[in-house]
């Protein structure tokens, strides 16, 4: 772990969808699937992003253009530099390493890519709003997809598709990341079918290393205890799916997604 942001040069940029770009940079840091970095744009801001590509000496983050910061990131060119510090957080527990299912919603899929690459016999489910927003289609050939508008795969949500699978197939474990409302329902289904499950949460972050208390979720620190939590932990986290903490520190009801 590095303590201060280290400037890295963007060596490649891939468009994953109209709204998502992946930025690659050289780095000797070692990451576990599910861990994240704090990305710094000097004079602007610093925000957390999951590592979505772990390669030899090179890592990538996939960024959905959403607000000021991600727009600034999207404007970066190959050869530009950004600051990163990390790896932070506790990633996915991959001991159950085969016959698993990953359920990704939107940009949440970025956290699950490295899980897919580490495991065997993985059923990959991805939900998006529409065909063009589907991510990593070349990377994972046999993904099961669904879209809100039916433009690709099942018309419906990732939860619907996942529910379909559960009735016909037995998984040893489920990994999920996406809008929190979606994950709440994935968790409900997993409990119903008695399948182990791990969930990657998102909260507004400041320090990233367990000091400031900004990323609290019912006494758990998403940056350090998480971002990945299992069912037992989630059971004790009353705020999961219900409350988030604003930049001011105010605990407010979650509306639809963290965003």
């Amino acid at each position, binding site marked *: 772990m590095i*303590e*201060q*942001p*280290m*400037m890295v040069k963007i060596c490649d940029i891939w468009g994953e969808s109209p709204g998502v770009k992946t930025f690659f940079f050289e780095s000797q840091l070692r990451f576990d699937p599910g861990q994240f970095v*704090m990305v*710094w744009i*000097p*004079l*602007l*801001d*610093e*925000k957390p992003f999951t590592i979505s590509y772990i390669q030899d000496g090179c890592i990538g983050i996939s960024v959905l253009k959403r607000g000021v910061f991600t727009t600034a990131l999207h404007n970066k060119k190959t050869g530009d*530099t950004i*600051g990163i510090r990390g790896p932070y957080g506790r990633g996915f527990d991959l001991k159950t390493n085969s016959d698993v299912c990953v359920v990704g919603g939107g940009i949440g899929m970025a956290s699950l890519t490295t899980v897919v690459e580490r495991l065997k016999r993985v059923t990959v489910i991805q939900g998006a709003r529409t065909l063009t927003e589907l991510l990593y289609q070349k990377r994972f050939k046999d993904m099961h997809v669904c879209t809100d508008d039916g433009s690709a795969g099942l018309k419906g949500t990732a939860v619907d598709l996942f529910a379909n699978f559960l009735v016909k197939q037995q998984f040893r474990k489920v990994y999920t990341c996406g809008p929190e409302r979606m994950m709440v329902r994935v968790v409900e289904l997993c409990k119903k079918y008695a399948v182990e499950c791990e969930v990657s949460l998102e909260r507004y*972050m*400041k*320090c990233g*290393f*367990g*000091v*400031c*208390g*900004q990323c*609290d979720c*019912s*006494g758990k*620190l998403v940056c350090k205890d998480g971002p990945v939590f299992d069912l037992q932990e989630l059971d004790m986290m009353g*705020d999961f799916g219900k409350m988030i*903490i*604003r*930049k*001011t*520190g*105010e*605990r407010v009801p979650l509306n639809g997604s963290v965003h």
Partner: protein
Amino acid sequence: MSRIDLSVNLCNIQLTNPTILASGILGTTKALLKRVGENGAGAVTIKSISREPREGHKNPTVIAFEAGMLNAVGYSNPGVEAAAREFANLEDVRKPVIASVVGTQKDDFVRVVEGLSALKFSAIEIPLSCPHTPGFGLLAGQGTPQATFEITSAIRRITRLPVFVKVSPNIPEICSIAKAAEDAGADAITAVNSMGPGMCINIEARKPILSFKVGGVTGDALRPIALRCVYDIYKAVKIPIIGVGGISTGRHALEMIMAGASAVGIGTGVYYRGIDIFQKVCEEMSQWMQENGVNNIKSIIGAAHD
């Protein structure tokens, strides 16, 4: 093995041990306070609350360096109304909870203290000493003996809770600040807040790292300075001192207590050793006391003075 007694009575607040979570670290929610209590803290302090909500400075707000941390969080907090909701039913925490109150005007402090008065806080701490938030603390001139006296007096008048005044290590005349607080009716001095401010520059980016450019220095770097402040204040005032600054081991805590602290605050130590640092520090203190024939922590408060 004789029984080691770590308990202290701080302004009539009974603490099972002298470790206290310092303000601004993990103190955003009741759930986190509870967890810190379960991890061994004798008491906990909430992140400072102002009258209105504040977003604070932009990220990066907290960074580590070789000898500690730099922070310029900028008093992000939900404001007194939302805080009053968050910190309702404080008995859930099961350890004494100290409210930290900040303001730009004397009146703000009063309003916040009033706004929290229905809650079960055990004490009110007022940091007049933040070095990196415009409108507050040192940057608002609150670090003078006169301002300290006025703000403390105003709060003294409206609460029966113990009032702790938190002082800055930057101020050469720290003892006169502590005396001003004592004269105004403060029940204890919290010494110290973060130091500096300091700066770290990323040489590739050619820019200060913190978005506010400068931030308060805490952790190891601060410890000898904090220790000297406590040593000096101990000679200057009669009220108890909560020693804060760079404590991350039992030895550090004992140093601070021998310098004159009745209790010790821990902040950056959470970064060095995790949330269970409180337990670890208590175990280390107990073990040392066992080995050195000290049964009662109270007996060594100020022991380093001749």
